[in-house]
């Protein structure tokens, strides 16, 4: 019987993947990034304390011989926040890269996805935003000809949320609504919580704050933005110059399931990929760490990226 996938096709795919990963390692090593090898397991309780909104059912749990519940790493950034940032002395930027597999439960069982990512821990947020986003587009360009880069700023949403004075539970519900871009539920939420102006208009217009940066700026003009929201928009304006002509959409409602993000956030999508090929953003260290430390990074989902690929590749 003829195999569903020919061995030669399988080998070609593996070669293509290896070529891309080698090229990525070469580029980031040349830029001074050091290979970080994350632990395979994390403590479930600790991970959930850092990432309250991550769906617990999506995590692959195991128990150790003391009966403690561990999870197969669902991401790498949490380990960087938890284990590396507290040790950083605040001197030279800490520049790391990883090439590893992250795990989660899906309908089809346990899925392991190969992720290549970089993390920079530094104190100068503006310059490292530029450098990391520029590196992200450079790596994407190595792997694909066609993608849309989406940029948002978690600072904008955090400023919007802080004016609402919601309980943790209600804030969690609002974040869930925004994650789904669920305009209908957002309207109901605003009505039920009797949210007054100007927060009401900001929330009701939130999903319109996407498109070209000029469109976003124009749509936001009528919303009486606070200085923190303006700062968030300014950060996006600054980043715009580093986009190297990439097809970019700005979306101020872009919200990650991970709560550690606190600045510029971004995604990239390809025409043949059902989910993001790249995710990243600026994140804050843990509450007990030094607040002046800020970090930024991204990860590329290699298998998702390879669903598309470069047109000139054999």
């Amino acid at each position, binding site marked *: 019987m003829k195999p569903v996938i020919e061995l030669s096709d399988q080998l070609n795919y593996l070669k293509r993947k290896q070529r891309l990963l080698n090229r990525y390692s070469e580029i980031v090593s040349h830029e001074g990034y050091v290979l970080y090898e994350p632990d395979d397991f994390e403590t479930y309780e600790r991970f959930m304390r850092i990432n309250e909104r991550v*769906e617990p059912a999506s995590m692959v749990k195991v128990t150790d011989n003391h009966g403690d519940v561990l999870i197969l790493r669902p991401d790498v950034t949490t380990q960087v926040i938890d284990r590396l940032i507290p040790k950083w002395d605040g001197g030279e930027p800490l520049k790391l890269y990883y090439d590893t597999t992250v795990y989660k439960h899906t309908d089809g069982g346990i899925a392991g996805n190969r992720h290549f990512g970089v993390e920079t821990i530094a104190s100068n947020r503006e310059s490292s935003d530029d450098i990391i986003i520029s590196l992200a587009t450079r790596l994407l360009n190595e792997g694909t000809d066609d993608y*849309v880069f*989406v940029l948002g700023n978690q600072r904008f949403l955090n400023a919007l949320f802080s004016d609402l004075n919601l309980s943790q539970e209600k804030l969690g519900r609002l974040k869930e609504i925004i994650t*789904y*871009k*669920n*305009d*209908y*539920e957002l309207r109901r939420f605003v009505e039920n919580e009797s949210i007054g102006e100007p927060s009401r208009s900001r929330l009701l217009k939130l999903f319109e704050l996407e498109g070209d940066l000029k469109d976003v700026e124009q749509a936001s003009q009528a919303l009486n933005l606070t200085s923190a929201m303006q700062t968030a928009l300014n950060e996006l304006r600054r980043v715009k110059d580093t986009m190297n002509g990439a097809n970019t*959409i700005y979306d101020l409602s872009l919200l990650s399931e991970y709560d550690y993000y606190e600045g510029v956030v971004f*995604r990239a*999508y*390809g*025409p*043949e*990929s*059902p*989910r*993001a090929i790249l995710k990243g953003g600026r994140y804050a260290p843990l509450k007990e760490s030094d607040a002046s430390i800020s970090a930024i990074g991204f990860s590329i989902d290699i298998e998702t990226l390879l669903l598309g690929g470069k047109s000139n590749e054999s």
Partner: protein
Amino acid sequence: MNPNMLTIALPKGRLGKDAIKRLTQVGIAKDIKESSRKLIFEDPKNNVQIMFVKALDVITYVEKGVADIGVVGRDNLLEERPDVYILKDLGFGVCKFSVAGYEGQSLTPSGRPLRVATKYPGVARAYFAKKKQPIETTYLSGSVELGPLVGISDVIVDIVETGGTLKANGLSVLEDMHDVSAKLIANRAKYRIKNAAIKTLIAYLEKEETL
């Protein structure tokens, strides 16, 4: 499938018929017959293709990016919690998620979990977990009303439109849980890649709503 067209997954059955009605009102998919055995239709004039699939499969096709957008009931979204965008309430397929059983049935039996028969175990578990009420669910794929009648459950959790089937079987609504209606969903990546086409369709639908 033509990757350059906007691909819409519609559920077979009444929700699909209502969806086709809404689309034809805005000039899309005018020649499509939901009753046909054909599963994929093209509307080249509007650069749209439509695929008819089972209601639950709409979520799968959209989440996997085979379809760019789809129409699905909120009941299935609450149960499956897919990683998609929920862009618009379409205003049809309106009903409620309810707990139903014999009149006077307690929802907090003492000393044991409440026994719930349902097609939606995830929705039932999430609802009663919020109320701190332990439950034991039995999955039934249809005729859920039979649960209390044959004694395998105390109550059922199901979508209720008129309550006619409940009444015919001596049951009634004990508690309303959630509003349900048809939603327009989109694959997260396709929403970005085919943003202009998706937004144009939504604008057509909203314009028609205001007429």
